[in-house]
């Protein structure tokens, strides 16, 4: 691994925001609306953001004990060789599994929404191949590519929401918290798991040129993600109402289709596709890089590049084999994914942090 690759805090914020928002804004609104109904925006905006900030603080505290190392490298130092290496292996497995799910989401979305005649493997192969190319070029290239894409992404997003302002009906938000707080909390679990994908920082912290700014970076990223996802959820509820939102598979796509400005500016879903394809490539590349880096560090290999293609093939195969159809995928995301993701996003890091706090109470020997 090239230790001299460094990225700035801004680049890291952009990377995390793109990575999480890009799949979040498609899948989160309808899953949240299923549980929280018209209060979905509270779930996404407040509850999930609070969870995200908690997670961010844990990662920062833990990461700053070892600013030069990733979780795969420092876990053995904290809790001993066997347990630490097991945790490293679990994280590698987690990154590969999540990445396979992301690739599947990508293919499923394109097949359902746009190109129903094209077989799924075509999309999956293309996106993994692109990501493999990015990964073999390293972290800096990934961040620069994203630095170019991020403003376009924000612009497209704001554009769609802005064009819909005349159709927004704030009456759809009332009554607030009709059934108490419980549905709101339940609705926040899935967006919370999404927010927790900043777990990537456990692998990427050594790349930051200012590790001391990690806390600010992470909290900033969580707040920005919160803003974008809340805007999406709130707009789809305000325009379509809670019932319609929860029955749609991809509310943001319907929102884009809904835009019609003077019978002239129409069919904006093409914009969604551009954002989605570009963003997912970044997202897949980020998780792919985390998986490959983790594997290389776990095996004590200096150069991770030989592992790019084999790991990519494994991701590709599992992206097709994990689920029979997209219904199963959404089911998994809405139920089992929550405790599974929380274990890796909060459970294990908190455990590591607890041990580290006790062990290094008097300051760590360098």
């Amino acid at each position, binding site marked *: 691994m090239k230790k001299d690759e460094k990225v700035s805090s801004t680049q890291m914020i952009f990377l995390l925001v793109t990575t999480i928002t890009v799949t979040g804004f498609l899948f989160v609104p309808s899953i949240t609306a299923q549980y929280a109904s018209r209060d979905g925006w509270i779930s996404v905006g407040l509850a999930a953001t609070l969870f995200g900030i908690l997670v961010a603080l844990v990662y920062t505290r833990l990461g700053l004990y070892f600013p030069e190392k990733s979780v795969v490298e420092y876990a053995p130092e904290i809790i001993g060789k066997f347990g630490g290496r097991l945790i490293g292996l679990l994280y590698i497995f987690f990154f590969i599994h999540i990445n396979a799910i992301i690739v599947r989401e990508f293919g499923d979305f394109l097949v359902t929404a746009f190109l129903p005649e094209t077989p799924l493997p075509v999309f999956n192969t293309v996106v993994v191949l692109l990501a493999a190319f990015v990964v073999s070029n390293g972290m800096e290239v990934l961040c620069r590519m994203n630095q170019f894409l991020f403003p376009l992404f924000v612009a497209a997003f704001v554009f769609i929401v802005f064009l819909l302002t005349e159709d927004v009906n704030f009456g759809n938000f009332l009554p607030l918290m009709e059934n108490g707080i419980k549905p709101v909390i339940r609705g926040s679990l899935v967006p919370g798991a999404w927010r927790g994908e900043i777990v990537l920082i456990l692998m990427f912290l050594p790349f930051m040129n200012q590790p001391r700014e990690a806390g600010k970076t992470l909290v900033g990223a969580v707040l920005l993600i919160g803003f974008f996802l809340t805007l999406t959820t709130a707009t789809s509820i305000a325009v379509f109402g809670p019932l319609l939102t929860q029955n749609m598979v991809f509310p943001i796509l319907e929102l884009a289709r809904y835009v019609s400005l003077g019978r002239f500016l129409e069919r904006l879903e093409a914009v969604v596709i551009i954002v989605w394809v570009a963003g997912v490539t970044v997202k897949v590349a980020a998780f792919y890089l985390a998986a490959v880096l983790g594997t290389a560090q776990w*095996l004590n290999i*200096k150069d991770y590049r030989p*592992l790019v293609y084999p790991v990519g093939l494994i991701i590709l195969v599992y992206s097709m084999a994990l689920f029979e159809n997209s219904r199963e995928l959404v089911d998994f995301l809405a139920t089992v994914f929550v405790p599974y993701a929380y274990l890796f996003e909060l459970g294990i890091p908190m455990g590591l942090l607890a041990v580290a706090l006790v062990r290094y109470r008097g300051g760590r020997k360098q």
Partner: protein
Amino acid sequence: MIILVLIIVFIGIIALETPVMLKNRQWRELAAFGVLMLGAMVLTFAQVLGLPLPNPTSGIEMIFSPVADMIKNILS
């Protein structure tokens, strides 16, 4: 047909990656690449031929669905 294409792709990847490692005498890298590539090839062929793959999702569902149910019960 598809198997032939896959074999060509695999040979391509191996031909692309191994010479550099051999030249630089990176034996650890080579071993890791070999093992992972072998695993990936087995998985790909199994998937293409329709053989059952070890699917981690079912295991994860088995471990975590009680927790998911518990959350559901608490919050409904």
